[in-house]
């Protein structure tokens, strides 16, 4: 038999555009969840935080959907995307994000903007919509992990840890988005401090899940090539600089010891950038494993992007 599977073919289909969508869906869903939780468990002091979180939900996901449309080969027919929810996570996901956007929009329109509506007084109705919205916000965040995980040949994604990783990152980046906007809109110092503490704890969890995810990827023979690409290969700078340093370590230190104001702003922005890098790392690390036949390993599934780069131009006369 050949040696362990050392190489695979890098997936080139889903790159930055999809990473931005995954990131924005995470931020929107996470911020909405944070807003609903603040509305449930916080007192009147937390009203502004809650409003910011709920308000961020719909626009973030909507902008993310624009990126999805741009990535389609045939965007004119995009409405067909929910035709087969029976087996396809993409169809299910489309339904999920549309329902989420509808509920988030109702929640926003009747409570926050353009003027305080019926939900401002009627707390139980607001909580009712909040619960339904939160369920779909959760699904919006988690389905992306299942969407990628359904791809069997890409062993890096084909794990139950991916939805967990996306969920923890979404909560973390969602809270960061709320903090970032909350600072400009005048959220109280004590609320910001508590948000920063919760966010710091979430980031510890995120680092833990990330380590387990990568360890699992390395120990699984099919995804070892992917893990190497992420840990030491071409994607490594996104992981170490983007996700670990910018996305986790610096915001964690700033949130624990940096205090308020400018430190929170920097922490939030770096953390959001880290969330984007995490999505890109996962996408760009995805490789389709080598084909084995009769003891041979056919590592390179040749699919050249630009087979003849030299032939792209007219030769000089």
């Amino acid at each position: 038999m050949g040696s362990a599977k050392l190489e695979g073919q890098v997936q080139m289909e889903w790159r930055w555009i999809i990473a931005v969508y995954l990131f924005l869906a995470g931020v929107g869903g996470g911020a909405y969840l944070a807003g609903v939780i603040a509305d449930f468990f916080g007192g009147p002091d937390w009203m502004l935080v809650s409003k910011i979180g709920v308000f961020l939900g719909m626009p973030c996901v909507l902008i993310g959907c624009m990126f999805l449309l741009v990535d389609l080969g045939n965007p004119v027919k995009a409405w067909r995307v929910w035709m087969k929810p029976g087996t396809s996570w993409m169809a299910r996901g489309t339904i999920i994000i549309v329902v989420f956007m509808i509920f988030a929009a109702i929640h926003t329109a009747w409570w926050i903007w353009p003027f305080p509506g019926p939900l401002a007084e009627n707390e139980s109705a607001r909580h009712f919509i909040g619960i339904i919205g939160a369920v779909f916000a959760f699904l919006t965040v988690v389905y992306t992990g299942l969407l990628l995980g359904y791809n069997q040949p890409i062993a890096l994604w084909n794990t139950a840890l991916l939805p967990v990783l996306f969920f923890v990152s979404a909560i973390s980046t969602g809270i960061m988005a709320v903090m970032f906007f909350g600072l400009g809109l005048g959220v109280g110092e004590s609320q910001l401090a508590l948000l920063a503490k919760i966010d710091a704890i979430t980031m510890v969890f995120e680092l833990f899940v990330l380590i387990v995810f990568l360890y699992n990827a390395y120990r699984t023979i099919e995804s070892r090539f992917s893990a190497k690409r992420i840990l030491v290969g071409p994607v490594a700078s996104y992981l170490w600089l983007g996700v670990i340093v910018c996305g986790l370590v610096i915001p964690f230190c700033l949130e624990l010891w940096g205090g308020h104001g400018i430190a929170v702003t920097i922490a939030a922005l770096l953390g959001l950038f880290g969330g984007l890098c995490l999505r890109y790392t996962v996408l760009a690390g995805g490789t389709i494993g080598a084909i084995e036949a009769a003891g041979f390993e056919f590592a390179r599934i040749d699919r050249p992007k630009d087979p003849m780069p030299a032939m792209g131009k007219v030769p000089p006369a």
Partner: protein
Amino acid sequence: MARYGMVIDLKRCYGCYSCVMACKLANHTPPGVFWSRVLRGEMGEYPNSVRQALPVLCNQCEEPDCLKVCPTGATYQTEDKIVRIDKNKCIGCKYCMMACPYGARYTVHEWKSYFPEGLPLSDYEKYSKQAWEEKSGVGVSTKCDFCIDRRAEGKECACVQACPAKARVFGDLDDPESEISYLIKTKRGFVLRPEMGTEPKVYYLPPR
């Protein structure tokens, strides 16, 4: 109904790429699109090494993952279990390209000529472009369909016809008397990536 499949004898295949070129001619695939490909593998170290060619194409799986992940229902199975794509339904999300264990699917975002940009298209290229856009389309997923049009005209699949070593045999897997069933049964036929559970219908015979 028939259940069509293919057998590729790795003992006969010597990696001449005739099937790749025949497929390109028959299906007018633009640059970078290889519905039929040949992979090269090497086992052992010099001087005790062996090389092997592995022709691959769409495996026309019984339980295709590409069909399951397709959100629009553009991918479908014909009555004789050949996986096809309805170009009018495909939105080009490229989900199927990642779900396919064999890398058999291709999407081109614009039709390109094989010749340098800026040169006028020859008549053949114009015909080729038209044929590609009519049958497969731009911005949508495309793949091998066991030469469904050629077979309707009574011809063989282009790769089967072109193979100089007669390494490829096309036939009905449901017919126990067919050559392909006989070969799979008697020559230890196997499939690629059975662990994916997609039940592929392209069988290989061992190289030795």
